[in-house]
């Protein structure tokens, strides 16, 4: 059971500030490090992995700084984003080599168990150069799991994977989280993180924008001014009612590119609006076909978190 402690950490390259005064504690379970491209996720992951010294502040595992201390890798597994691996070897040979580099007593057994855990036993003996992106990703996972680490760091593990491969990797990460390991992975795609990350740490432009359980953050986000799209049997009447009701400060009737129209509502307070809408619709006998938040995308969520 290891905790990652990041205390007031900043990191800059020349005058480009990649990570700006970030403090977070990451305990066991699956944590998603979320943020748009260039938010500083990789830089932070590299510092946690001991490959980049923080410009200020400290990055430690259970109190032990990670920079320039190779002993931390007894308990840390790394899955890099880059695909560089010893292509001439086969998957099994690479995982076995990693096991031996860790000096494991039963290297062969550990390697076999790691390959089974990522379901790569069938193709393990083929050379890595013939592997697809998904297979390479799973072998990278095996190399990071072979010494049964307490901490697992994954940089954009889902990049370029199709849904099938992604679903398998998600199940694997969830299992690892349940085994009590501290799994920290970075991603810039909301859908992936939402399904498996118990808690998320959100970074935007190097700043620590939000942290905590994913649903908490979703709920926090609903108190902000919100764009909503509504389709109903009588948009014009509903628009009038909503404005009269006072729970929205802007309504716009816009034609859909795919035909038909929709009501775009700028809700002042989502709580009041979401309560008022069904009541108003019922009172005016307007049938609601669709009610959906319009700016669910990660970018707008974080843009909001930054402006706050």
């Amino acid at each position, binding site marked *: 059971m290891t905790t990652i402690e990041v205390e007031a950490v900043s990191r800059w390259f020349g005058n480009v500030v990649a990570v700006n005064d970030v403090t977070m504690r990451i305990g066991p379970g699956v944590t998603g490090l979320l943020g748009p*491209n260039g938010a500083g996720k990789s830089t932070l992951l590299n510092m946690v992995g001991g490959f980049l010294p923080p410009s200020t502040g400290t990055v430690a595992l259970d109190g032990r700084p990670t920079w320039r201390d190779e002993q931390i890798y007894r308990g840390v597994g790394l899955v890099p984003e880059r695909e560089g691996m010893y292509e001439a070897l086969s998957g099994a040979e690479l995982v076995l080599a990693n096991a031996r580099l860790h000096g494991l007593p039963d290297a062969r057994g550990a390697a076999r168990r790691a390959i089974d855990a990522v379901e790569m036993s069938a193709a393990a003996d083929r050379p890595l150069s013939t592997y697809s992106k998904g297979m390479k990703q799973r072998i990278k996972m095996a190399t990071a799991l072979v010494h049964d680490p307490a901490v697992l760091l994954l940089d954009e593990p889902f990049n370029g994977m199709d849904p099938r491969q992604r*679903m398998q990797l998600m199940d694997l990460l969830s299992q690892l989280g349940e085994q009590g390991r501290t799994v920290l992975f970075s991603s810039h795609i909301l859908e992936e993180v939402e399904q498996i990350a118990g808690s998320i740490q959100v970074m935007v432009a190097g700043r620590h924008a939000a942290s905590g359980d994913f649903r908490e953050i979703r709920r926090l986000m609903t108190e902000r001014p919100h764009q909503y799209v509504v389709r109903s049997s009588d948009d014009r009447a509903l628009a009038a009612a909503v404005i009269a009701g006072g729970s929205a400060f802007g309504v716009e009737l816009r034609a859909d590119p795919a035909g038909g129209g929709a009501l775009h509502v700028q809700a002042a307070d989502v709580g009041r609006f*979401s*309560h008022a*809408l069904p009541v108003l619709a019922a009172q005016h006998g307007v049938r609601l*076909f669709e*009610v959906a938040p319009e700016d669910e995308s990660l970018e707008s969520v974080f843009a909001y978190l930054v402006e706050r």
Partner: protein
Amino acid sequence: MTVITTRGLTKRYGPVTALDDLSVDLAPGVVGLVGANGAGKSTLIKILLGLLPPTSGTVEVLGLDAVAEGEAVRARVGYMPEHDCLPADVSATELVVHMARISGLPPTAARERTADVLRHVGLYEERYRLIGGYSTGMRQRVKLAQALVHDPDLVLLDEPTNGLDPAGRDDMLGLVRRIGADFGISVLVTSHLLGELERVCDAVVVVDGGRLLRSSSTADATAQRSVLAVEVDARTGELAAALRAAGLQVDGDRVLEVALRGAGPADEPAYDLVRDAVAHLGIGLLRMERRRHSISELFRPAEEAPGVRA
């Protein structure tokens, strides 16, 4: 008039069959080519560009035989590769002007069209910086620009949103939409991030293991499923109970999935029942939309997908 026509198109690399007897007719507009990694998407694109001879079958692009008249096809087609293909030590303008010249544009036209097309893809003053320092999003825009600069009749975009974050993805999809709609250029776009194809394409071709799974307009492919997804901000259990009491079939815990009878929206009772139940309980309606039958169901392992597979 079809943009792309293939008949019995097959491509084998030794034991591996990349394309297996594929016959499609793609009309002008934005067509999505969907498939898992290794489903034969890139092989098809190489054959369309006349860079790879098929094992058997015929392929016609813009009325030209891609095998015999490959050069003529490549003159009228733009191609945006999936992988990175940009040199690091030149600027975007320099590269796109050069590629325009290689597509046969005279110098002045090459410069003017480059400036124009870089504006359309959203590259402004960064176009003069060296590509080595570009972000993923900017690199994708340069790749798109070089595919458009010589005013092709058809562009082949191989996973244009790969590696982009949500904002970048929305911009790119908007661009792909504009190419089809405003620029009047037919588009074949491949992807495996499925939600986006629904928003952009007029028609969808689904391939798996080199075989044609389905080819239909987007409307059919994402025919709205007969389920209404409802999300409220409190007392979801009570809402579910109320809806079941009103005779609706409901499952799911945080997001309720209310089964619809599939009849037209006019005489579907569920809408009003949900509206009144929520109003009666005095809770907030966060979301209510028909769960679009997203193409991803096609890819969930057969036994899990709820009977949607065509």
